[in-house]
Structure formats: C-alpha cells, structure tokens
C-alpha cells in the first residue's frame, strides 16, 4: 500500500482574510490532487528536532500543485500563531495529505447541498463552493455561515458576488450590521428552517465548526427530519461537551 507522503510546500502568497486569519497559498510539488472537504496535516519542526502536527482543511478546489489553507490564529496556540504571523512567502512547510474520504462533496453529486459553517468551519465548505463553480455544476447550494461579527467574514469579496445557484445567509452571533433584520444570536431552528432545505428534498448536509456549534446544528437537522446518514460533520473544536 502506498504511504501518504510528506511533501515540502512553498508559501507562494499570503492573503489576509480578517485581522486574525490568513489564507496561505502553497505550491506543493508532487501534490496528488484532492476532493473538496479534505484536509492536510501540517508538521512543524524546531531546530532541536522537536516537532508537532495539526490538521487544516483545504480551502481551494483542486488546482494542480496549488493548495490554499486558511488558518485562524488561536491566542496562545502553538501552531496557528506561527502560520499566521511568522511564516512568509518563500518559506517551506511540511504537508501530508489529502486526508479524509468522508466529509467530501463530489461535483457529480445531484442532491441539493446544505453547508453550515461556524467561524473557521467555513474553510472546507468554501472548497465545496469553489469545486462546484469549477465543475460548472448546477447543484443548488445553500450556505449558512455563523460568525461573531461582519469583520470576521472569510472570503468576503468572493461571497459578496452573486453565484448562481448558491444562497448565502450570514448568522451573526455578537454584532450585526446596521439595519440587519435578524438580531445577534446563536443559530436557531428558525435559521436552519429559513436558510436551509426541507428534509423532503433529501439534501446532503455538511456541518463544520467548533464542537458545540456542530452538536447544535446537527441536532436541529435531526429534529427537522433530516436523515442522520445525510448529515456529515467535521469538528475543529477545542472543547467538547
């Protein structure tokens, strides 16, 4: 069996998404390609040989040897501050992947798709949106994107432009823009009911974000009658219940 190899990626470009999150555009010679929703393992090694690994979702659709990751800086984190503050273009990074064959959307899928992301949980969902566009797919997509405030939106420009067949709903939990109808608050049944799909449409549901968020949203989907096997989840979370 072929081992998943470690690749040496080179940071080609940095795009700031928010003051605390950036997209790392990587060139990875020998990259085998990936499916939307998969992630990579990143390994950092210090001069004394100490090394540590973390997982990061791929944000981009397959594009040769180019791979985008978007990393949220976690205060006091060991790896994310390095990736978001220290790393600069030209630096190299050890990467292995793609990993994960379950939380993936394939462009030949025909069932409607519901994407529900909390915070950096948007990352693998964005890869699905991009893969859909790249394939010229007409599969109807709906995105529910929960985040604290408008300034924390990732991919803001790209999602502002209307994409045919994609509905985007922002759910702000702390601060809303002026004149915004929905008061700030955590995701509710009403949000999923309004911004999602009826269970009879048998959508594929992808839910990604912190553990508590994923638990809440998947419980709501079950209560609305969605089939448990149609709900795929990815928990980035720090803490569990």
């Amino acid at each position, binding site marked *: 069996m*072929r081992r998943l190899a470690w690749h040496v990626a080179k940071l080609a470009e940095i795009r700031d998404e928010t003051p605390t999150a950036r997209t790392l555009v990587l060139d990875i010679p020998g990259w085998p390609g990936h499916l939307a929703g998969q992630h990579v393992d990143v390994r950092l*090694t*210090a001069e004394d040989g100490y090394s540590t*690994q973390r997982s990061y979702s791929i944000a981009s659709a397959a594009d040769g040897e180019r791979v985008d990751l978007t990393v949220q800086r976690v205060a006091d984190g060991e790896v994310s501050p390095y990736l978001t503050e220290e790393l600069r273009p030209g630096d190299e990074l050890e990467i292995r992947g793609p990993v994960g064959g379950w939380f993936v959307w394939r462009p030949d899928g025909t069932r409607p798709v519901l994407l529900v992301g909390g915070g950096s949980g948007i990352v693998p969902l964005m890869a699905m949106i991009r893969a859909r566009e790249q394939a010229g797919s007409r599969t109807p997509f709906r995105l529910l994107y929960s985040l604290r405030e408008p300034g924390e939106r990732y991919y803001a420009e790209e999602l502002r432009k209307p994409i045919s067949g994609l509905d985007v709903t922002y759910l702000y939990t702390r601060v809303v823009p002026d004149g915004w109808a929905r008061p700030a608050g955590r995701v509710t049944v009403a949000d999923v009911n309004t911004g999602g799909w009826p269970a009879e449409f048998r959508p594929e549901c992808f839910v990604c974000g912190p553990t508590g968020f994923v638990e809440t949203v998947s419980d709501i989907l079950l209560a609305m009658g969605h089939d*448990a096997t149609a709900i795929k989840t990815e928990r980035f979370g720090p803490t569990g*219940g």
Partner: protein
Amino acid sequence: MGFISRGFRGRPRDEGVKLPPGQYLVHDFPVLSAGPTPRVPLDRWEFAIDTEDGKTHRWSWQELMALPSETPTVDLHCVTKWSKLGTAWKGVSLDTLFADVESSAEYALVYSYGGYTTNLPVEDLLDGKAWITYEFDGEELAPAHGGPARLLVPHLYLWKSAKWVQGIRLLNEDWPGFWETAGYHNYGDPWREQRYQGD
C-alpha cells in the same frame, strides 16, 4: 539534516511527558465524530456480542450495571493529534463480557448506534486491554463522548474506542470499519504512528 521550520520554536517542552510521535498534549476533551450524536434511551439500550457461529450474547443496561466494574485510568491518543493523559473511566472489562463466549474468531467488528463501525483484532479486546465504559471523570458519560456507553481501547488511536457502542461481531476474516475504509490505518497504533493506510 532533516527539515527545519524556519523560526519555529514550539512550546516549552515538558521533558517528563512522553507522547507518541506527532501528538500534543491537551487538557480539555475534544470531540471527533463523523455525524450527529445519536441519543439512545437506556430502556432500549442493549449490548451484544455476536459470534462467528451466529450465536448472540445480549446485555440490557441493568444487566451491564450488575456486572463487576473496573476504574481504569488511561492515556488517550486521537489521530487528529491530541493526547489527553490520565483520564478516569468506569466500566466493565471485556474479559468479563467474553467470559461465557465461545469463539475462535480472530477479528472483531465493533458497531454502534448511529451506524459507526470499527475493526480490530480480538486479542486487542482481551487481557485487560479494553472496557465498555459508562462513566468518565466520575460522571455519566456525555452523549458527545459516546454515552450511554462507549468501547475504550486506549492502546489504539481513539477512533477504535467506538462511541455509542451497540455490539461486537466476531469474524474469521478482517472487515474494515468506517474510518478504516476511508483511508485510515487498519490497526492504528499511536506509538508506531499508524495514522493512515500504508503508515
């Protein structure tokens, strides 16, 4: 000279703690699962061992509670890289559950409420290496962590410790489970860093 990440120092190392390669220490308890958390009412809960000859041994919740329990304190290693040390559990040893099971099968497929499966050799379930647990840290096991009961096989990566465990099917041939079919390692020994197929 191996690869060095320019400017990476890492956290100050606690030299006293030895972790499997590629793992880091956490103090909270992260959650990993592929779908929604199933809720299993205790009056309908049941645990089964199905042998290769088609015989089934069953335990209701009351029957499980009536069995002698153990309180293992073990280290957990999740394939998503975190390790949590010294976790305290309460449950029934699989040696107890297997006491009256007649089988010469070498493989086990563990299955869960909600449809999850994972496979491992039968010998990894025996001789004090595995439990059906129902308490964590002195409290009943939360659904997100696999309650009412989960398998605990701490010497393998945590995905082998099936949450919401429903039964164990004994087989003469190895049958890959959910993550094992999705590209993860068939055995999953953290000390040999067997994360993915081919590792």
